[in-house]
C-alpha cells in the first residue's frame, strides 16, 4: 500500500507528544506525595498512552510499511521521534511536573478542540474522544499551579522555578513549519497560530490567580518536530524500550 507521508508525520507528532508525556507521568507511579496524587498522575498518563496507541497505530497504517503502534513506540531511535521538547523534560519535583502539565494540557486541549474538525477520520475521532479527558488534565494542573503558587513560600518558589524551566518550550508548541502548514492546508492538521491568543490569555489568568509573574521570555528551543531532542529523551527511551527490544517476542 502506498504511504501518505504527510498523514504519517502528522500522526507521529500527535502520537509522540502523548506517548512521551504518558511515559514521563508513569515515572511518578509509587512516588507521588500522596496516593490521590499518585492516582491522578498515573491516570493522566494512561489517557495519554491511550491517545498514543490510536495515533501511532494510524500512523503505521499511513506509513504503509507494516509497522504498528508498538513497533513505532518501541523500535524507533531518538532521532526518529517527533514530540515537542516540553513533554520530554524531566519530572523534576511535583511543581515542575505540574507546570509542564499545565502548559502542555492547556495547549493540547485547544489543539484537540480544533482537530475534532479534521478531515482525517481517525484524527477527528481521537480528538473528539480525548478532548474531554484532556480538559480534566488542564483543569487539574491549573488548580495545582494556583494552589502551589498561592501557597507557602517554598511551594511558591518551586512552582515559579517549574514554570521557569518549561517556559522556553512554549514557542515550539505554536511553531508552524512547512509540514504543519501543509497539514493545516489539507485540513488534517490544525493551524495552531489561531489559538495562540486564547492560550496566552488562559495562562495569564491562571498565573494571576496563582499570584505568580509570568517568567521572562527566553530564547525558544525548537526542533523536536524534526527529530532534534535534548539529552533527556534518550534516557527515557532506554527505560521505555528496554524490555521489548531485549525480549522482542515477550508477551504478558
Amino acid at each position, binding site marked *: 500500500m502506498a504511504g501518505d507521508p504527510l498523514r504519517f508525520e502528522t500522526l507521529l507528532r500527535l502520537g509522540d507528544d502523548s506517548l512521551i508525556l504518558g511515559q514521563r507521568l508513569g515515572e511518578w507511579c509509587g512516588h507521588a506525595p500522596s496516593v490521590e496524587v499518585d492516582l491522578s498522575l498515573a491516570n*493522566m498518563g494512561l489517557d495519554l498512552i*491511550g491517545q498514543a496507541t490510536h495515533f501511532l497505530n494510524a500512523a503505521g497504517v499511513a506509513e504503509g510499511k507494516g509497522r504498528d503502534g508498538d513497533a513505532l513506540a518501541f523500535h524507533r531511535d531518538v532521532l526518529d521521534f517527533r514530540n515537542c521538547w516540553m513533554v520530554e523534560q524531566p519530572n523534576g519535583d511535583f511543581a515542575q511536573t505540574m507546570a509542564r502539565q499545565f502548559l502542555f494540557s492547556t495547549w493540547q486541549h485547544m489543539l484537540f478542540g480544533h482537530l475534532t474538525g479534521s478531515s482525517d477520520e481517525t484524527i*477527528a475521532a481521537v480528538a473528539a474522544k480525548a478532548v474531554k479527558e484532556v480538559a480534566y488534565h488542564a483543569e487539574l494542573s491549573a488548580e495545582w499551579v494556583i494552589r502551589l503558587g498561592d501557597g507557602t513560600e517554598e511551594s511558591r518558589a518551586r512552582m515559579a522555578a517549574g514554570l521557569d524551566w518549561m517556559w522556553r518550550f512554549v514557542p515550539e508548541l505554536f511553531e508552524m513549519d512547512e509540514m504543519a502548514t501543509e497539514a493545516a492546508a489539507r485540513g488534517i492538521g490544525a493551524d495552531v497560530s489561531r489559538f495562540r491568543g486564547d492560550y496566552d490569555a488562559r495562562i495569564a489568568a491562571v498565573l494571576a490567580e496563582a499570584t505568580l509573574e509570568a517568567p521572562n521570555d527566553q530564547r525558544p528551543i525548537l526542533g523536536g518536530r524534526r527529530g532534534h531532542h535534548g539529552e533527556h529523551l534518550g534516557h527515557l527511551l532506554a527505560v521505555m524500550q528496554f524490555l521489548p527490544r531485549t525480549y522482542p517476542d515477550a508477551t504478558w
Partner: protein
Amino acid sequence: MVTTLSTDALWQVLEGVPDPEIPAVSVVDLGIVRAVSPERVTITPTYTGCPATQVIERDIRDALDAAGFRDVRIETTLSPPWTTDWISESGKAKLKAYGIAPPLAAGERAVECPQCGSTRTEEISRFGSTPCKAQWRCRDCLEPFDLFKCH
C-alpha cells in the same frame, strides 16, 4: 424474522457480560455496546486509555463463542465518543447498589452518598480507582466512595 431473533439472542448474551472493573454492571448497561447486527457487535471504549477495553473485547468474544456465535465479528469504533449519558437507568441503579455514585444527570449538582443517601459530600481526588471514577467522601457517614465521573 430470523434477523430479529438472532439479534435478540445476541443482546441477551451481551447482557450477561460483566464489565471487568465494575462487575455489578454489564457491558450493555454501561453503553459500551453501540450496535448489534447478525454479523457484528460494535463496541466503543469508555476512556481512550481504558485498560479494560481489551479485556472487554476478549470477554465478549468468549461469551459469543460459548453461545455459538463464532462468526459474529467485534468491531471497535471511537466515534461518536462514549458518554456517561449512555449508561442505562438500570445500570445507574446497579452502580449505586454496588456502592458507586452514578454520574450526575444534566442539571443535577449534589452528589449523593451511595451508602447513606446524604448529599453532604466532598471530593477527595479527581481520579479514583479507575480513570472513569473520582474519589469522594460522605461528611455524614464518613465513608469514602467512588463517583462515576460525568464524561
